Structure formats: structure tokens, C-alpha cells
């Protein structure tokens, strides 16, 4: 169905214009607000100690036992090359779940604090400007303004794909960045 047809439909049935709206859970990290599709969020937990995984990239903090399932925990700050902070009692872990071709995949991301739930219509979102072909922009689905604040909507699917290849690229990029610095 084209978007025009959808609009026409919406006009016919009053009050149903929330059809293309999606709810996003937003969280704060280094002063910026990020959003993930709320349907991908399984639960929100406090930070707890993890078991370190050998030879893991530094943004993988380790694995935890989530009611009998082994779930890896990713530090989103180090994933995005942001400044590290000490974990505090308010540090939260958002457990995300996505369907991949290999089946369901569950992973936790460490963020500074959970913020809000917003209903955002797809038509309000803007593509992020393609300034730098950085790996980090790959995780960004779009940008949106809510009450004059910009929210960065993340592509959860990509975020959770810690494919070896991507890891390699990531390592190369960080190596490059470091040498540039």
C-alpha cells in the first residue's frame, strides 16, 4: 500500500491516524537522547557484575545469567566511542530482543539512564545527514524532534549483529581513529 493510499484510509476513519506511529523507549547517554523500538525491549534491569568473555571486543562487558539464558552485555558508550564513566547504582541495562535469521537474539545494552516513552510517527523522522561514513552512523536509523529535543533512533537489529566481519571493520576503524588522534 502506498503512503498516499494509507493517508486516504486514515482520512476515512477518524482518530486512526496513530496507525503509522510507533512507540520508542528513549534513554540518555552523554547528554544525548537515544530511542529504540519499544517492541524490541524485553526488560530493564540494574547493572550487575558480568562474567568476562575471553577475547571479546572491549565494548562487550561480558555475559550474565538472565533466568537461565546466557545474555551478553554491551556497553553502548564504548560501542559509540564515547567517554567511559564509572557504573553507578542508577546505571541501567536495557535487555533487547530481535529476530534474526539465526533465531531470536537477546542482548543487554548499558546506558546512563532511561528517559521516556514517545509515540513517534514515521513521517516525522528525518534521515541522519551523511557527513561521515563512520561505522557508528550505521546504527542510526533516523533523527526526530520531540519538544525541540533531538532523539536519535537506533536500528536495534544492526546494533545486535556482532558479526565477526563487522567486528573486524570496527576494530580497523577504531585503530584508524586512534592513530589519527
Amino acid at each position, binding site marked *: 500500500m502506498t503512503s498516499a493510499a494509507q493517508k486516504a484510509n486514515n482520512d476515512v476513519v477518524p482518530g486512526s491516524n496513530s496507525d503509522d506511529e510507533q512507540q520508542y523507549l528513549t534513554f540518555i547517554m552523554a547528554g544525548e537522547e537515544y530511542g529504540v523500538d519499544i517492541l524490541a525491549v524485553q526488560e530493564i534491569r540494574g547493572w550487575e557484575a558480568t562474567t568476562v568473555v*575471553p577475547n571479546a571486543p572491549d565494548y*562487550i562487558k561480558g*555475559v550474565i545469567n538472565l533466568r537461565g*539464558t546466557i545474555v*551478553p552485555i554491551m556497553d553502548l558508550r564504548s560501542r559509540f566511542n564515547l567517554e567511559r564513566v564509572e557504573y553507578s547504582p542508577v546505571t541501567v541495562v536495557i535487555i533487547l530482543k530481535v529476530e534474526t535469521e539465526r533465531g531470536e537474539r*537477546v*542482548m543487554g545494552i548499558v546506558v546512563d539512564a532511561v528517559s521516556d516513552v514517545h509515540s513517534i510517527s514515521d513521517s516525522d523522522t528525518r534521515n541522519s545527514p551523511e557527513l561521515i561514513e563512520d561505522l557508528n552512523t550505521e546504527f542510526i536509523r533516523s533523527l526526530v524532534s520531540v519538544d525541540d529535543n533531538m532523539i536519535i533512533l537506533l536500528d536495534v537489529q544492526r546494533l545486535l549483529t556482532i558479526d565477526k566481519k563487522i567486528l573486524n571493520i570496527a576494530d580497523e576503524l577504531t585503530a584508524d581513529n586512534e592513530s589519527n588522534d
Partner: protein
Amino acid sequence: MSIDLSQFHQVFFEESFEGLDIMESSLLALDLTEVDAETINSIFRAAHSIKGGAGTFGFMQVSGFTHVVETLLDEIRSGDRDIKQEHVDLFLICVDCLRGLLSDLQAHTEPDMAQADELKAKFEAILAGTEAETENSAETNAVGSASDTPDQTETAGQSADSDVKGWKIEFIPCEDVLCTGNEPYRMFRELQDLAEAESGGSMKVVPHLEKLPEFSEMHPEMCYLSWTIFVYADIELSDIEEIFEWVVDDCDIRYERLTDAGQASDQISDQISDQASDVVVANNEIQVEDKPTEINAELAEIEAEKEVVAETPAAAITSATETEQTAEVESEKIPTKAAKSPTKAAENTSIRVSIDKIDGLINMVGELVITQSMLGQLGQEFDMDRVQRLQEGLGQLEQNTRELQESVMKIRMLPISFAFSRFPRLVRDLSKQLDKEVDLVMIGENTELDKTVMEKIGDPLVHLVRNSLDHGLENAEERTANGKSSNGTITLNAYHHGGNIVIEVKDDGAGLNKERIRNKAIEKGLVSEDETLSDAQVYDLIFQAGFSTADVVSDVSGRGVGMDVVRRNIAELNGSIEVTSKTGEGSTFSIRLPLTLAILDGQLVKVGEEVYIFPLVSIVESIQLEKSMLNNITGNQFVMQLRDDYIPILCLQDVFNTGAEKKDLEGAMLVVVEGDNEKVGIVVDELLGQQQVVIKSLEQNYQKVDSISGATILGDGTVALIVDVSGLNNKPLEKNSDDQTQAA
């Protein structure tokens, strides 16, 4: 029919596959010099139930094909025909073909009927063959089919306007039809319903009383009647056939189409041309190609039968409509196939469990419930005086849990004969192909093994057996020249050993040629020329990728792909493989596997802040390091002398890059582990307890981690990683294997 039969499909497929297995093993067990009637019967029964089931569920391709197989079997069973080697071979091909058809149907794909049609024609030829022999009408066959062919084209035009008015059915049941639970009256009633469903349809039944004996001689359970039924309605023959489906084997049923023309000869050609046009409509290439031969075969059959003229069209109609039906089914299937393809992956497997195991489990659960209620009561009114009872209760709970765990694990255990069962056939076919005489001996078929392990060990075993047959065993001349019996022997032996199962594949062939392996390895640059290798090291070379000493690459083996895969598969199951060999006496491959994949006896160790688990089976010993044992080679690689061996010493902190602080090696605790026949010493900070751990997948949410085979959850809820010992040993090779997996 309002019942949704598809819910039973899975059961049907499973039973059919079982039936095919029975057919296969019985066929292989068949001794042609002294045919055992019971074996033939069991083959027949298996074929019969597959046919019946396939018919019930509307898998006409399968039932039609099985029918001809069954007919030949029936003749053998009743002694009308002696079974010959060619028959056994043909039956075995049929089993394979049926297996293919059934798995296609199971996957909701259109079965490939090309092979089935070919085999069917062969069977029909055999079946027709005897009649030709007895009646000596081979010539008439040729004449008959030749004269009929032009007829067929001639009357094709006329037949188009012949009006179908109904059917005349001759129904001559066998005498004991009532004993098989079939009641003719019900069939008539159903037939009547069918007829009256059409507007203006009606039915007339004419009984024949000729065979009726005197009243005094009459047996109450025998059926002496036969009937002629006239159905005056335009119904499909397949609908009528469905009614008589269950009695068609025991009874004589002839269908005749009631038409205006009424001429028998016209009808034959009428049907045949109908059939021909149907084939064109079906637009199926294979079918079109097959048709001419099939029609001829049918005609030959009809001629050979030399029955009353009135009966001939009936036979033609039956066979014609049969093919018509398959053509219909096929064209119908195409859209459904497209619709069903997304659900293809929804294949669920099941295990058959003996009732004893289930009963044991229920008993165990009962005891667990009692313990739980006892503890519950204790907890409600607890004071310190009752600590003793609490501890007793907890002890009981532990025992119950352990027993329950063992019984649940036993459910997954199947006798290894499930994996062995395919080998008689494999060995038979291969030995024929390679022209070697081979006896297969299987020992310990009742040794039980986890189902998952069993599924994964099948292919490596096949590989080993093929290898032994192809490379291990010499051919008969060579054997007799070496003073051995001309028949080679391959022995499959399975037995429990500790917490493991050991499977041996043994041959009494020439043994591994050490010199040749070594030369080949030097040629490939795997070892240098002046290197001295122990026997075990030489044998180990055959597990290298791309290694083959076979002079001739055959389609059986010799390409050097395989042994490395075998070893990798076995390593994935936490198992190991060893070779022993004696020149001139043969070689033995022993596979050692854990009984189950779900639970592991582990030794907990502490390294830095982390707890790791070593599989208990891989631990050789634990010792305290002393300075005198240590030798430093190449800078930071330490080795130690352990009796006759020098073993490398590893620090997990280095291997895993955990960044934890390393302690002084002197006085440190060393766990010596063995994997892939290589020992390695691992420095740990502390030895914790031993316990059974449940293996959890790390890959499910994360990815494969080198040197880690999985994770588990400890009593305090934290995660501990299980160290993959053979992975640690292969550390230097890691880079290579990574490249390979990425390339693949």
C-alpha cells in the same frame, strides 16, 4: 470426510520410514538359498501398511507405486514365484525410491516420479513376464500392441462424444472378507450415497447366489455371495475405488463403464486415448515420455491375461484411470505446493520411549512431590531443633533430583543400533561396487547413546566405514596371496567406558602404510624430511585436511576430504578419535564420545576473578609447580617435564586476554589437561569443587568463542565459562581455521 487427516501425517511418515527400515533390514537378512517365510511376510506387511496408509492420506503416488511392489511380494509370499537376487536388488532400490518419495511429501514438495515410474514399469514387466512364460504369448503381445496402436489413434475422434452413463461393477469378494472386518453392505450403502448425490443418480445391486452351499455346509462367517452393481450416475472412478480401497487386495473387483457405444474394443482405445490426452493436459514432460512404453506394457498385460473379452476393458479402465488420477493429483498439487512452501522448515522430530522409562519417571516425580511436601511442612513450623530433619530432607531432595535427572536423560538415550542399522546396506552396496567380499560384524548394538550425539556421529561413522572398505581392505586376490581368508571383515563395536561411549571401526585389511603416509606428508610439506615421527604422530597425519594416500581417487573416497571433517565433527561433540594399526593385520579407529551433551562433570577453577570449568574427563592430573620442573623456551613459553613428556604451560590470562594479573609460576597450581592426544598444563589460582554442570549455549545470543565450549550457571546464579581443552591445544592453528570458516 470432515476429519483433518493432516494431523496424522507426521505419524504416517514416521511409521512408513520405520517400515522401510524393516523392509531394508529384512531384505538384507534374506538368505536366498533358504528363504524364511516369516522374513518375506514381514517385508510384505511393511509394504502393505505403507500402501494402506498412503492410500488413506491420499498420497496416490506412493500407494500406486507400493501396490506393484506389493503384488510381486504377494506372489513370492504365496509361493507362486521364487525370489531371486535380482528381485532383492530391485526391492532395495524401491525402498530407496519410496524413502525419497516420502521425504519429498513430508517436505511438501512434489515428489519426483521419474524413478518410481521406471521401477513400476520394471515390476510390471516382471509380473507380466510369468504370464508370458506360462501362456507363451510373447508373440501375441507384440502383435496385440502393434495392432492396437493405430486403433487408438483412429478411435480418438469418436470417443470424444461418447456419453458416460455410469458404471457396472463386478464385486466378487473372497470368502473371508467378513473376517477382515469389511462389510459389503456398508460399501453398497456408501456407493448408494455417492450415486444419489448426483441428480437423478440411482443404483442397482444384483446378487449372484451360485456359490451358495447347502445350508448344513454353510459357515456363518464366510461370504458366499458376489454382486454385480450398476451405478447410474456420472461419478469419478476414483470415488468408487476409494470405497473398495480396503478390500481391493482380497477381492476381485472389475469396473466397467456404461456407455452408449458399449463396444468393448472401442472402450479400450477410448480409455487409452483419454489417457493420452490427459497426459498432454497434465503438461508433464516425464509423463509424456513414459507414456508410450506404459501403454504398450498395459496392452501387453491385457493381451497376456487372455481373459474373457468383457473383462479386458475393465482392466484397461482401471489402469487408465489410475494414471489419470496421478496426473490429476499432480496438477492439483502444484498450487498447493506453492502455498505450502513457507512452512517447509516446520519439521518436528519425535522419540519413541519405552513405557518402562516413563513409569520410572513417574515414580521419581511422585517421590519428589513427597519430599517437597515434607520440606514444606518442616518450613512452616521450623525451629532450630529440627535442623537435623531439614538436612535429611535436603539430602533426600538432592537424591531425588539426581535420580530424576538421570531418568530424564535416559529418555534421550537410544540404542546405537539406530546409527548402525544403515551399515549392512552400505557395506553390501559398496562391496559390490568395489568388487570386494566383506563381512560386517556389529557388536554392542544395544549400547545406549544420546539422540543428539547419535545424529551427529552418523556421518563420521559412514565415512570411516567407507574408508576402511575402500582403503583398508585389500581385494580377494591380494588377501589370499597374503594368507588371509578372501572375505574381509569390518567390525563395528560399541561399548560404555567410564562416562563415555567408545565406538570402534575395525578392519582386518592391510593396515596403515606408515612409509607412504610419511612420504606423502613430506611431499605436502607437512613434515620435514629429517623429522622422526612416532607411530601415533604418523597416524595423526591422516586427519590433516586434504591428506590422502589413495593412488586412485574413486567416487567412494580418496579425495582427502573427510578425515579432517570426521575429526572436527567428533571434536564438536567433545569427543576424540584414535587410530591404531598393524601392518598386514588391519587398523582400528576408536571414537570416544560423551554420553550426553547436556550435562558435564566439571572441575571448577579460579583464575583471577573468574571461575572456569574444565571437563573432568579431560583432566589428567593437578600438580604444584616447582622451579626445578620449569624450563623456559623461546622467551616467554614455558614447558615442564612430566615423566617422559615435555608439556607446554599456558596461562589462561594470556590466552583469553582477560587482563588479570599473573602470579609467579613457581609454586602455582597446574592442571594438566589432555585433548586431541596432546597434553597441556594450565596455571590456575585456585582449585574449587567438582560438580555436574548444565551446558548452556554461548552462541545463541553471542557468538562462538575460541577455546570456550559453552557456559553454565553456578549455584550463586553467576555465569562460568567451560574451557574447550582441545581448542586450547590447537591455539597456534586458530588463525588458519578462522580464515577457512570465513571463506566458507
